[in-house]
């Protein structure tokens, strides 16, 4: 096996004059926006007045003002304050890595209780310090009743680590035996060759199996496993048991990034991503939900050295792109190069805070009165703020309430005719609209009563357009957007989810007007679902036909 190259890499970085390294340092707060971040650093573990303040909701602030609640941010500078002594940076790459998971919660495995039950990280330390025992069992999955899962935060890394550590057992002991009990052996790509090589070792024994427990047995340990490939339950007498503890991202329990943003110091909705900082692993790798902050390494997924190096390259390129774009005053991603930005007609703002709450990227801070404070370089131009604003005072030069409203008004509505209805579809231009296009190219037939208007993101859907449509006599409106939830596909993360919430609200408004709430619907479509579009549309049209024409038609 090769000696780890990490030492060489560290000294190469240390020798590079354009790179400044600060050790034993933490980020107190990052304020500002891409191209112009102000970063306040502090000694690790210390507290300063510049620490990033926690988010305080409007209700909490009320209680604090009344003196009924303690201010959690007492003694800290307000999040909108910029530290005059802070250092200026253009973009941030978050590579704070991972910590070994605590596996003592799996009581049947005995970590923390039984001597010689160690984690893979502890075993690695043993191997570095000296010889490892000659008879070792590696447990890759917690097992117990019908549990097929690996330890959390494992990915393929712990499979590889177990294979490597099994080799330590063989190299340190002439008659060493290493047992690996796994539910999944993950060795993607070329690492399959490593797996093959290890498998070929006479003294390394692999089997799939469900570990039911580890028990003390004189001076050694007994591992019990069911459902093994050997066709029966196994008992192994070993000197040591190694548990494949996962790699918990540092962002799981700690904000780590410490942003001085209105939406709080941490990344949003981390539970959607199991605590990983990355916002969308497939569509937008390295991009977090904070523009200008990119994730790489263990905060993105449990990964090997090789993958981490790829990651670092990707994140660094994104960071460069960010600084370049900020410098030229254009959007970074995903609408790279967009020259517009949301404009606010502040004299009519009611400080309702909907835009500042709903912005998926935390682009809007607010001032003391609650008026939005835009940070144009944090903005990704999705228009969610425009869709949220009940006063309709937010718009772009090329995309505004008025623009879409005019499109709605331009659609011809058949007048008071039972047979000819009109249905309007608002279509997300990122996935649903190309899917619709493809459906057309495949010559799929669709009901001709429907008219389509593309929108930037369903998040930018302002309710007023629905009202415009229904009051001009159209009989129904459907929104086609991306999937949301933990397997979301929205370009702007929250757009379609926010839109469907708004439509639930508008449903209530409609019923007070005597209209059926079902006249407005939201459907989720993946870009590959183009063949499903005609059915979705026809079904909706059928429902509307059944309900009959809009009673407001002709007024």
């Amino acid at each position, binding site marked *: 096996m090769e000696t780890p190259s990490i030492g060489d890499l560290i000294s190469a970085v240390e020798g590079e004059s354009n790179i400044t390294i600060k050790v034993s340092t933490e980020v107190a707060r990052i304020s500002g926006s891409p191209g112009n971040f102000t970063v306040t650093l502090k000694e690790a573990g210390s507290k300063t007045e510049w620490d990033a303040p926690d988010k305080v909701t409007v209700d909490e602030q009320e209680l604090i003002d009344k003196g009924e609640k303690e201010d959690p941010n007492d003694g800290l500078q307000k999040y909108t304050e910029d530290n005059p002594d802070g250092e200026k940076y253009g973009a941030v790459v978050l590579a704070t890595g991972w910590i070994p998971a605590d596996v003592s919660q799996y009581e049947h495995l005995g970590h923390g209780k039984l001597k010689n039950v160690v984690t893979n990280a502890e075993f690695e330390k043993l191997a570095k310090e000296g010889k490892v025992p000659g008879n070792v069992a590696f447990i890759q999955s917690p097992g117990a009743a019908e549990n097929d899962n690996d330890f959390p935060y494992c990915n393929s890394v712990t499979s590889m680590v177990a294979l490597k550590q099994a080799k330590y057992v063989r190299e340190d002991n002439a*008659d060493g*035996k290493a047992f690996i009990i796994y539910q999944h052996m993950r060795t993607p790509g070329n690492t399959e060759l490593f797996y*093959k090589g290890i*498998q*070929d*070792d*006479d*003294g390394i*024994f*692999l*089997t*799939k199996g469900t570990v039911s427990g580890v028990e003390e047995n004189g001076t050694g340990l007994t591992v019990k496993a069911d459902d093994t*490939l*050997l*066709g*029966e*339950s*196994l*008992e*192994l*007498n070993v000197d040591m048991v190694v548990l494949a503890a996962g790699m918990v991202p540092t962002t799981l329990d700690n904000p780590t990034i410490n942003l001085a943003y209105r939406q709080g110091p941490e990344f949003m909705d981390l539970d959607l991503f199991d605590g990983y900082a990355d916002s969308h692993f497939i569509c937008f790798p390295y991009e977090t939900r904070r523009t200008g902050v990119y994730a790489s390494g263990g905060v993105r997924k449990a990964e090997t050295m090789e993958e981490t190096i790829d990651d670092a390259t990707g994140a660094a390129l994104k960071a460069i792109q960010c600084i370049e774009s900020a410098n030229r005053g254009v959007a970074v991603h995903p609408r790279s190069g967009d020259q517009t930005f949301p404009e606010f007609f502040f004299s009519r703002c009611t400080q309702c805070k909907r835009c500042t709450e709903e912005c998926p990227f935390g682009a809007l801070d607010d001032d003391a009165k609650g008026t939005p404070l835009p940070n144009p370089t944090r903005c990704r131009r999705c228009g969610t703020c425009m869709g949220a604003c009940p006063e309709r005072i937010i718009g772009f030069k090329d995309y505004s309430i008025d623009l879409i409203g005019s499109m709605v008004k331009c659609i011809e509505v058949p007048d008071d005719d039972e047979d000819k209805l009109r249905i309007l579809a608002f279509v997300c231009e990122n996935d649903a609209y190309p899917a619709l296009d493809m459906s057309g190219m495949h010559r799929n037939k669709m009901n001709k009563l429907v008219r389509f208007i593309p929108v930037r993101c369903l998040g930018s859907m302002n309710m007023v357009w629905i009202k415009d449509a229904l009051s001009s006599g159209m009989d129904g409106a459907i929104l086609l957007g991306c999937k949301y939830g933990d397997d979301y596909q929205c370009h702007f993360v929250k757009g379609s989810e926010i839109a469907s919430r708004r439509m639930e609200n508008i449903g209530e408004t409609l019923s007070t007007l005597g209209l059926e709430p079902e006249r407005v619907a939201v459907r989720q479509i993946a870009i590959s679902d183009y063949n499903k579009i005609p059915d979705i549309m026809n079904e909706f049209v059928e429902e509307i036909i059944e309900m009959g024409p809009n009673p407001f038609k002709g007024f």
Partner: protein
Amino acid sequence: MNVQPDLDFIKDMKSAGGDTLKKCYQCATCSVVCPLSSDGDPFPRKEMIMAQWGLKDKLIGDPNVMLCHQCGDCTAYCPRGAKPGDVLGAIRAYTYKALGWPTGLAKLASSGKNLPILILIPMIIIGIFWKISGSHVPTVEEFARNGYGHFFGHWNFYWLSKNVFFIDIIMLPAAGLAAFAAFKGVTALWQKMSENAGVGDATFRPSAIQFITQFLFPAMVEIVQHNRFKECNANEDRVKGHLPLLLSFVALFIVTAYSAFTQDVLSLLPGINLHGPISMWNPIKILANVGAIALIVGIGILWANRSQKEQEGQATKTFYDWFLIWEIMAVGVTGLLAELLRLVGLPSLGYIVYFLHLVSVMMLFMYMPYTKFAHIVYRTAAMAFEKYRQSAFVKDPLEG
């Protein structure tokens, strides 16, 4: 099951042709193609991991390992090149060695580096007896008249001829030892198979006659019919070699039995002289000659098949497999050549070839229980066991 892998067993496997065994990653493609595999018993997938884990006790008493006739389908379809067929061959080789008695001889016969010793032992024994008998070398006339009948000399009284007497004292102990070792081995195998199959103390045991008529004889019929070979795909040509070979063994067994009867039994009666050589037109002689040719043709086909498989990488070259092929080829070639030399009339050369024939026949007998030839008894036993296991003696017919 408390598992204690035996690293030496794994090493043994690897040196006996199972060097690919660790490559198996348990995909069970082999079990899909193998006709021996059943839903509850994925063969040879399970045997592969048992071998990887060094669980020799489980493997030695596994009837399927013996029932496998190495059709080669598993090896042909294995996506990982683990060659399950060869691993099973290695397990069998190990089983013969482990069950062999005396242990020293079993170990000796299982390794290629002992080949010179294996050949020297019968050479020395036969050489010494030839010396004791008077180092007889015939003249051309004597040779024409007696053939090899006076190889160990001649005496003039009615009893066993001197030649037959010497052949008996060489071959009978050798065959006896082999028979005893085979009996011991088969008994041990049967016991292990019973244990592994969970055949406890059966309430009813088959009588010897029941055993023969219900299990052993049907198994032998099946062997002669070669039905199982016909289920092969990858190796189906092998039946063309194995069938004539097996029939030639039957033929030569009849010839030998006839000779033993005439030479050892009828010769004891006064006034009867049946000493050879037998006329070329005697039906027994014709059977012997046809048998000899079938033997050479059969083993030749197997030889060619095996070489081709090895060239294609579908089989591993092992001493275990080749020793039997060489041995049988040697018996056939020296036997036929000795006969030809007798007909041509070259006494010295004929005697040398005849000597080699005796050596190779003795090797075939003596090493039978420890080499691949052991399959003749172990596989027959396993096939009988398979029938026994499925019979009402073991399985409750009401519960299936």
